[in-house]
């Protein structure tokens, strides 16, 4: 597997704690994501993996700790600021725009790149039309890449689950993100769909050079795909390293298999 060329750190999470009332979702967690790598976040149910992603893209505001993204440190930010900064994500339970076609969903991912104002769009003439066509070109490249050409005009609510996940990945890719957060991209998929999705993830990383942070429960997939793995359990980081290191870690084995009492 291709290893990331740089050790430059794209995102640094330092001492983040997050609590909902009495529930401590994250306790003093620090981790870094290097530019160009595929970083997996794993852990048993309720370990705080999704909370971690939500903190990174500004959904949750941590009680303590700071996040440094592209050299800028901040305690909290709004979701649209995160997207402006180049963080895209997909959701555990697909969060597509159900009433729109696959094409429109992915086109919506280009919102930030489109500049023409209301009046131009209303006329849909000249620069506005040119802009629309230019972005359609980019979106068609993504559609091509994800092999979803036949369904581009289908309302996403009618698509099977596996394809919906693919469209959602397409929408995130349309943002041309620097950091792509994938929350269980393979949940509920069969073996074949998992293989396809793994291929897309590797290709995205390889072809576009996108840094990827993913949460996944399928250990075989995680160990094969990722460059480095961080393990959370009950909101605490218990291991961090290459897949091989993590596999041998006694704390990780205990967390997953339980300890004899």
């Amino acid at each position, binding site marked *: 597997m291709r290893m990331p060329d740089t050790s430059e750190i794209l995102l640094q999470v330092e001492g983040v704690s997050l609590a909902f009332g009495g529930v401590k979702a994250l306790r003093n967690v620090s981790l870094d994501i290097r530019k160009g790598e595929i970083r997996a976040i794993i852990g048993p149910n309720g370990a705080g993996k999704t909370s971690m992603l939500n903190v990174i893209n500004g959904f949750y505001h941590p009680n303590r700790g700071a996040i440094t993204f592209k050299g800028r440190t901040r305690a909290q930010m709004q979701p649209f600021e995160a997207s402006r900064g180049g963080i895209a994500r997909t959701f555990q339970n697909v969060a*597509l725009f159900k009433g729109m076609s696959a094409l429109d969903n992915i*086109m*919506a991912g280009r919102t930030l790149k489109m500049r023409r104002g209301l009046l131009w*769009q209303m006329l*849909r003439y000249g620069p506005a039309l040119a802009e629309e*066509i230019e972005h359609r070109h980019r979106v068609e490249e993504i559609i091509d890449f994800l092999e979803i050409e036949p369904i581009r005009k289908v309302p996403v609510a009618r698509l099977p689950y596996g394809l919906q996940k693919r469209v959602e990945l397409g929408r995130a890719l349309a943002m041309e993100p620097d950091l792509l957060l994938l929350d269980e991209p393979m949940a509920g998929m069969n073996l074949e769909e998992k293989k396809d999705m793994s291929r897309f993830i590797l290709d995205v990383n390889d072809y576009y050079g996108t840094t990827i942070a993913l949460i996944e429960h399928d250990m075989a997939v995680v160990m094969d795909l990722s460059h480095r793995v961080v393990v959370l359990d009950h909101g605490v980081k218990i291991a961090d390293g290459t897949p091989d290191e993590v596999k041998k870690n006694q704390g990780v084995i205990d967390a997953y298999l339980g300890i004899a009492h």
Partner: protein
Amino acid sequence: MLYREAGQFKTTYAEDMAIFPIHQDRIALAILLGIAFIGVPLLADFDIWPFGSDYLLRAILLPFLILALAAIGVNILVGYCGQISLGSGAFMAVGAYSAYKLGTGVHIPLAWLGFAISIPPLPVLLSILLGGLTAAVVGILFGIPSLRIKGLYLAVATLAAQFFFDWVFLRVAWFTNYAPSGSVNAPTLDFFGLNVGTPIERYMLCLIFVTVFAFLAKNLVRGNLGRQWMAIRDMDIAAELIGIRPLYAKLTAFAVSSFIIGVAGALWAFVYLGSWEPLAFSIERSLQLLFMVIIGGLGSIMGSFIGAAFILILPIMLNLLPTQLGVPLSTETITHLEFIIFGSLICYLLIKEPHGFARLISIGKEKLRLWPFPY
């Protein structure tokens, strides 16, 4: 001849993104526009039935066009952006009264400052458009709560707009130029020196307005802004994550929607009613517009037209039918029957097809494409 796409190859994205990418649809639209722009005036000119009397033009086509325009406005807000509004009647009223004020001259005496703001009467076209603009500003103001509240609660907040403006136009005499009866008359309809007076002229005027606005609205909803509105409607959290600002998306939807509704309100007052009082824009008008959009099809420009036609024409048909069939019924019975049949039809339709007529048509088209095969 058949409704088929076979052989219609698109070689550019521009062709694929046309409003009507299918050739047969374009022909159908051309025929429809031809009838509306050329056929109807010709028939009316030669006094051919059913245009022999002005009834059809004045009592059916004119209100249909204006309310269809208002329904497009409501559909942008409710159907595309998913913000339920019960204040459409109020936005129509704002459009109508501000157009009236601008058309008859605005005079604001600021005695304590020692001067007065006076604007001479503006041309009718300008005052109608500025009336729409005023409605847009008011729409933005009453859209601000939508940033914090959703669904039924927002509906109640917009209801406040309805009752507020009902009250304002009834009680603040300045808006009605101190007319003792509270009823006001529209200025004469002069467009670039051309007087619009006869029913057919009024029809053409409204038709031009509706066609232009429908076209612009269609462009908006299939462009970037339209996608932002629909994204907010379908999943606001995910929308925020791809960089859509709810503030911008919701308030532009309120602004565009209220602008169109305001223009429709000004047309309703100036062209259809001629003289009116605040009752013309009551809560019933808001509900009527909302029903049009729901029955015609949420999130469909064409649906707005179908909904307007259904809501307007069906009661008239129900009213005429017993007399045409020669069934002797008292007027009260007819009125009651009208309500009963109308109500049950709406219930039936919404149960069978909650997405309205527009969805029925698109399903029909899909079937037609494959006909005679099931798939």
